[in-house]
């Protein structure tokens, strides 16, 4: 084990490093959540042709601080019949895996928590642990609406894990490694994975929207449905912790998108200087990540919500066959033309075009069959 600075004992240095790393990650998550809450309100306001928060601070910049202070000062209501320990534990079970995801995200060359050679598998594993926290939250609230909201959310999360993992496996097939650093390293210059696997990007983006309970898949936590789903009984900072966990998860998903499909920290002038390079790399990575966070918010302001049966049938009847087909075609093409990604890229763009153009066609067919059924019922 390496000795610490000033000749510190290696074991103490290891523990100190761990504490500093966790504190940095927690700071990143909370500050990111603060920034994203403000951004979300401003962007939704701009898209909806209003101004958003303007009073507190210049251009409403202090609004999130005001919200956080209010949440911290709220009374900690505990309903008597809730299962106390599970009620307390549920936000932590949702928050902890998200915090642990920041270990493998590659911010810059050399700036990564731990270059695990199962990095991507580690991220999907942590993503699957949040389901447990949500089921517990729904069940421990001792409330019909919370229970149904929790079970619906768990069903949605488990269903959309499959297209998410299948899209990621397609990228791993092309790159050849599960390590996040190697995936970013394999995209030099303009050869980003988005140009090779646009369909994987699209399906991962949609599945990521569903995995983080964002619109149009936010049925479990929408305020107009089921009161507030599994968040009903949570108030004050416990609700704030769920919220921060959701924004943190959004940041993790967008970081994965930026790292896997858009070259991560690659950008102009990164390889120039050993000291300036990493700082520039972090800058490019953050810009790419927050671009996708803004797209998430743009989608939230634009699209209506799915019903639970529409959500499930979209996943099982459209996304999973699509991602399986993508995986199959990519694997076959990689076997037939080894070391040549051009056939894979062509096939992927063709499939993406087919997916995009077949949706109105399928919708028209479904509407026609619905109309036919209504006409038959009116005639009978």
């Amino acid at each position, binding site marked *: 084990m390496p000795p610490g600075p000033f000749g510190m004992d290696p*074991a103490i240095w290891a523990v100190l490093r761990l504490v500093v790393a966790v504190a940095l990650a927690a700071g990143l998550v909370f500050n990111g959540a603060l920034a994203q809450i403000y951004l979300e309100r401003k962007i939704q306001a701009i898209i909806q042709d209003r101004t958003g928060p303007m009073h507190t601070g210049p251009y409403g910049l202090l609004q999130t601080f005001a919200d956080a202070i209010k949440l911290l000062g709220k009374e900690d209501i505990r309903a008597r019949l809730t299962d106390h320990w599970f009620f307390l534990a549920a936000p932590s079970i949702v928050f902890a895996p998200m915090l642990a995801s920041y270990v493998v995200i590659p911010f810059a060359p050399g700036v990564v928590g731990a270059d695990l050679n199962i990095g991507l*598998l580690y991220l999907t594993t942590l993503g699957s642990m949040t389901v447990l926290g949500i089921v517990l939250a729904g069940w421990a609230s001792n409330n019909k609406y919370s229970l149904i909201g929790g079970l619906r959310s768990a069903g949605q999360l488990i269903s959309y894990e499959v297209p998410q993992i299948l899209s990621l496996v397609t990228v791993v097939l092309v790159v050849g490694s599960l390590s996040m650093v190697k995936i970013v390293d394999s995209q030099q210059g303009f050869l980003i994975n988005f140009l090779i696997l646009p369909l994987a990007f699209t399906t991962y983006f949609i599945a990521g929207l569903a995995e983080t309970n964002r619109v149009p898949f936010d049925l479990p936590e929408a305020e107009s449905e089921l009161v507030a789903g599994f968040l009903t009984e949570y108030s004050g900072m416990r609700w704030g912790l769920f919220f921060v966990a959701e924004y943190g998860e959004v940041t993790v998903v967008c970081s994965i998108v930026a790292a896997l499909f858009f070259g991560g920290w690659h950008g102009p002038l990164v390889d120039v200087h050993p000291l300036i390079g990493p700082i520039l790399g972090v800058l490019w990575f953050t810009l790419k990540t927050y671009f996708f966070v803004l797209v998430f918010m743009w989608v939230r302001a634009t699209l209506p919500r799915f019903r639970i049966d529409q959500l499930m049938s979209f996943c099982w009847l459209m996304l999973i066959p699509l991602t399986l087909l993508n995986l199959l075609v990519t694997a076959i093409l990689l076997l037939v033309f080894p070391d040549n990604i051009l056939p894979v890229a062509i096939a992927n763009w063709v499939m993406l075009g087919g997916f995009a153009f077949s949706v109105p066609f399928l919708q028209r067919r479904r509407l026609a069959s619905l109309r036919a059924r209504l006409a038959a019922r009116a005639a009978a």
Partner: protein
Amino acid sequence: MSSEIIEQALFALLTVGIIGAAAGVVFLNRITGAALLMAFTFFCMAGMFLLLGAETIAAFQVLIYVGAITVLILYGVMFTPQGDRDYRLFFQTQTPWAALFVVPIAIFVFVTALFAFRDSGNAGALGSDLGPLATSVFRDYAFPFEVASVLLLAAMIGAIVLVKRDED
């Protein structure tokens, strides 16, 4: 203080976690507590796999057991509410028989396990288990892999058919 002591301390902690949580699963009256202690056992088991250096298996353990099977068991617990009755009947005859058969065999197997096995010579030279595992599963054992997927399909269809309500 060195990595050896840390490794042994971790092993001791994980053992206490596994055995304690498993004892809780077996002897706890509250079913939901038992389910969560089972999840804790699975988590500590993943830690054990990490101590052995099998990181892919550890990730799969958390993904499958904590992420999916615990949720299934919680669904089963939630949909069959029984109240927290005592875990055995007053006049149940099974516990003394269980103790009579299980405890001696357990002690014998435990002592044998502790002292009968030796590490191989090059036991520490193995690297990550990702590459060899992938090669083995998809090359040497490809046929069992396909059979396993058929098994999953059959289990999925069977489970759906079993819980389907008979719609009139």
